[in-house]
């Protein structure tokens, strides 16, 4: 705990917005009450989450050291800050940056906080937030006060709340946008922050703004609420509004958002958002957290019924002047340049030319460019933050934005200043080229700090960055512009679903040992607002993923036809050929003394799920369960192939069959003579694996079992393309969960 904690409130008196200050005072009181045992731990957990104070790995007081689980003897003993979350365990502080917009003073504040409360690094997330790691809960009120003095809030950065409102980082300067969505994103963020109608959600809610429909932009299609700038002509007048989409989301099973309205006038943006919030709060699932996002509510109701309910709610809303009082200032919102427009540079070093090509793009406003400062894995040091603040002041009116690709952009750079700017950035190690190319890999924190991490997303990303950077100049444009995104688990915080090459962490057993793997997910669509999602191909040991990337990139480079984009290439060559290309990488190494695959990137500990569950090892015989689980995976694969070729009913049937086979495999572990019908399998599974919680994932609970139960219930219903698609994804996850269950059981095997 910092010695100055008790002094910051007085130091900053009068400099905090009153409401923010009061909120932080309340939180500080809640900390004190919790320490006195007068506040329930669950309540405290939600209250700190709603202030962005998150848990981190090992905060349950256990850490697997590669051999065994060690108890961590925190000084605070049994005092907790939430269920299974010890008080003194370091946590993560998430800091909301609405629409990614920052000024130089805020960068300097972040620098101070990274040094004084964290490990000297500020991390840009895939939702334009910042995160600081290894933060003590006792320090968070001071940290929050210092942010508030810089006009930044952490309120509702986590928890069952409206999360950060994101927006395209080129809003206002993009040649292709319909109009600048920045003032609307800020207005929505301000309006919904702490709004009474947003306090009773069963789960988080994520809005995003886009200025156009064709580029990646704000990735509206994968958000709970997506707003895409639109215009129409009414009586000869240009009217501004939004195409509104709802119910998108990544997570374990990704959903594309559905069209709510092709044109919502600006005046209706806030009231409709409020009405949606009310419907979500009233009707959204609250008990079963795995079905509590709004996408499930919309799926269950259907979009027509959902729309009807929202519009009905809208009619009943008491009028609120805040709905429209911001519009006048929105009309007048303009960023400005510091320097006059200039001419692009003609000369410069090879390094500068390379940087110019990848890290700059012309603005809509002639003579200006947007410059991307590429941050390795989204990380920036305190010194770099201060230097960037100076650079922003020198070249701009502090027009700075974070991006969901974990970078920072500087807007309104005069083209004549680009060379000088590059030199200034380069002097601070911020001039790395390759922004938004194949070397600019996005990764969630993964097993570095996240409790849910299964494989090391950042370790893999760092390794791929290094290897790809060595080859970077050799890539043709089509390959260079591929997106790689990595998530540490199926929850897709790394947004792997919308990458050309996506990976998410899974675990498998090889020779009886748990081995970190990544599921390979190919052909996601980044453009068109995250227009479509990649499909899983197969799981490969983590240490073999670089070779996966090499083979795919080479295959694409030599095999693509007539300017074919990667997504189309993947679709054309098909999963069977992809499997042929990669399947040897899924096998254990030929040399049994090669132990590399049993550790993960950047971590020499023998891999285990010990920090999530219980690590174990078993013999080398391939068990009957292994055969059944492999059979189940094969059926999922076949289901995908069937779906791709339009055999919808067949694909749905195979996906359901895959789940039955995996369930049957587990049941046979202990009851080899069980009967075979689906009713019997599901009944036995429910009694022996669900009711006993044996199948329960330590963090996802019984979520995946529900996929089997729902599929069994609806087994006789015809499939639509959508329902079959979702079922395949759910089957995939069920089979993964069966693998995990089998590993946790650590049973002696029999063939």
């Amino acid at each position, binding site marked *: *705990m*910092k*010695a*100055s904690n008790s*002094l*910051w409130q007085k*130091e900053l008196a009068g400099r905090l917005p009153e409401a923010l200050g009061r909120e932080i005072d309340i939180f500080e009181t809640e900390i004190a009450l919790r320490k006195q045992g007068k506040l329930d731990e669950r309540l405290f957990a939600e209250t700190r989450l709603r202030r962005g104070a998150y848990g981190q*790995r*090992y905060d349950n007081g256990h*850490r697997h*050291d*590669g*051999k065994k689980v*060690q108890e*961590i*003897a*925190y*000084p605070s003993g049994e005092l907790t800050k939430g269920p299974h979350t010890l008080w*003194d365990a*370091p946590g993560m502080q998430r800091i909301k940056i609405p629409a990614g917009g920052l000024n130089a003073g805020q960068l*300097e504040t972040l*620098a*101070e906080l990274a*040094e*004084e409360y964290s*490990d*000297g*690094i500020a991390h840009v997330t895939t939702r334009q937030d910042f995160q600081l*790691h*290894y933060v*003590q809960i006792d320090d968070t009120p001071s940290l929050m006060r210092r942010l508030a003095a810089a006009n930044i809030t952490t309120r509702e950065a986590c928890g069952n709340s409206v999360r950060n409102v994101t927006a395209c980082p080129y809003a206002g300067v993009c040649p292709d946008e319909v109009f600048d969505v920045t003032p609307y994103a800020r207005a929505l963020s301000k309006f919904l922050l702490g709004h009474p109608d947003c306090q009773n959600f069963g789960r988080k809610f994520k809005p995003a703004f886009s200025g156009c429909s064709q580029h990646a932009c704000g990735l509206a299609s994968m958000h709970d609420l997506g707003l895409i700038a639109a215009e129409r002509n009414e009586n000869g007048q240009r009217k501004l509004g939004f195409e509104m989409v709802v119910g998108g989301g990544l997570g374990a099973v990704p959903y594309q958002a559905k069209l709510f309205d092709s044109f919502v006038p600006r005046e209706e943006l806030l009231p409709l958002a409020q009405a949606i919030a009310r419907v979500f709060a009233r009707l959204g699932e609250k008990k079963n957290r795995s079905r509590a996002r709004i996408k499930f509510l919309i799926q269950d109701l259907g979009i027509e019924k959902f729309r009807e309910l929202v519009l009905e709610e809208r009619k009943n809303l008491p009028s609120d002047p805040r709905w429209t009082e911001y519009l006048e200032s929105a009309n007048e919102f303009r960023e400005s340049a510091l320097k006059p427009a200039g001419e692009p540079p003609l000369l410069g070093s090879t390094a500068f030319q390379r940087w110019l090509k990848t890290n700059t793009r012309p603005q809509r406003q002639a003579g200006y460019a947007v410059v991307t400062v590429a941050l*390795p*894995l989204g*990380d*920036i*040091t305190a*010194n*770099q933050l*201060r230097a960037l603040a100076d650079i922003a002041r020198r070249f701009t009116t502090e027009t700075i934005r974070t991006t969901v690709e974990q970078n920072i952009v500087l807007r309104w750079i005069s083209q004549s200043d680009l060379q000088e700017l590059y030199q200034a950035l380069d002097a601070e*190690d911020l001039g790395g080229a390759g922004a938004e190319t194949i070397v600019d890999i996005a990764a969630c924190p993964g097993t*570095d700090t996240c409790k849910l991490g299964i494989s090391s997303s*950042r*370790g893999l990303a*760092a390794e791929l*960055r*290094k290897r790809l950077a060595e080859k970077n100049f050799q890539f043709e444009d089509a390959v260079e512009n591929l997106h790689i995104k990595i998530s540490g688990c199926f929850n897709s915080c790394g947004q792997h679903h919308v990458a050309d090459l996506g990976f998410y962490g899974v675990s498998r057993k090889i020779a009886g040992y748990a081995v970190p793997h990544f599921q390979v997910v190919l052909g996601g669509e980044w453009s068109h607002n995250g227009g479509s999602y990649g499909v899983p191909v197969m799981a490969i040991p983590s240490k073999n993923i670089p070779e996966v990337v090499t083979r795919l990139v080479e295959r694409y480079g030599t095999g693509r036809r007539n300017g074919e984009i990667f997504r189309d290439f993947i679709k054309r060559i098909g999963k069977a050929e992809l499997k042929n290309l990669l399947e040897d990488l899924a096998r254990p190494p030929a040399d049994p003394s090669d132990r590399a695959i049993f550790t993960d990137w*950047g*971590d*020499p*500990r023998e891999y285990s799920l010990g920090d999530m569950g219980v690590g174990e090892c078993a013999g080398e015989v391939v068990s009957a369960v292994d055969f059944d689980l492999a059979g189940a995976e094969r059926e999922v694969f076949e289901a995908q192939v069937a779906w791709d070729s339009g055999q919808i009913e067949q694909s749905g049937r195979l996906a359901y069959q895959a789940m039955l086979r995996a369930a049957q495999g587990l049941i046979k572990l202990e009851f080899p003579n069980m009967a075979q019908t689906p009713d019997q399998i599901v009944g036995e599974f429910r009694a022996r694996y669900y009711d006993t919680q044996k199948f329960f994932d330590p963090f996802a609970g019984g979520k995946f079992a529900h996929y089997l139960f729902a599929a069994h219930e609806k087994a006789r219903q015809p499939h639509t393309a959508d329902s079959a698609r979702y079922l395949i994804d759910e089957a995939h996850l069920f089979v993964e969960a069966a693998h995990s269950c089998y590993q946790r059981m650590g049973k002696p095997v029999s063939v």
Partner: protein
Amino acid sequence: MVQLQHVRVKLLVKNSEAVDLEPLIPVFHEWIRGQVFGELLLDIADYRHVPAGPGVVLIGHEADYSVDNTEQRLGVGYHRKAMLDGSNQDRLAQAARAALTACQLLEAKPLLEGKIRFNGQEMEFSVNDRLLAPNNEATRQAAHPDFEAFFRRLFRGAEYSLTYPSDRRRLFSVCVKAARIFTVADLLANLDS
């Protein structure tokens, strides 16, 4: 009087361009397994991908240890996080002793092949609390006697020079350079005498 809490010490290493930080990771994991210091060691943060960054950090509850390349000056670092009772001299000595002990262990580690070695002369001390010790002239004047007394003890009367980086946005810090070479063992012995 200025309170010198949350002291950070960095011992600059020699031939820093030859140092590969990757072998530190298994070494730090081993330290966590063995809980080799009196402080609670928790985890490792790997920032090798960040140029002029924190390098590899051994996260602890009371303090972090690191081999840190901030400002392209590689050094063995100790960052005190928990408050410490006692005087400024006690806190400076505690942090210096911790950094020197860590450095001694690293110097002796076969896996590191002797490549991490204190350069014998240069150290950086900073106070990681801007409210207690803002980086300004008043802090420098208030802290200077404490630093003088401490370095007299640490270098056992040998000559040294001090510089105080003046960027007011940065942590209050002092860079010290001894006029002659000391080994880590020398400095630990001086602290203990």
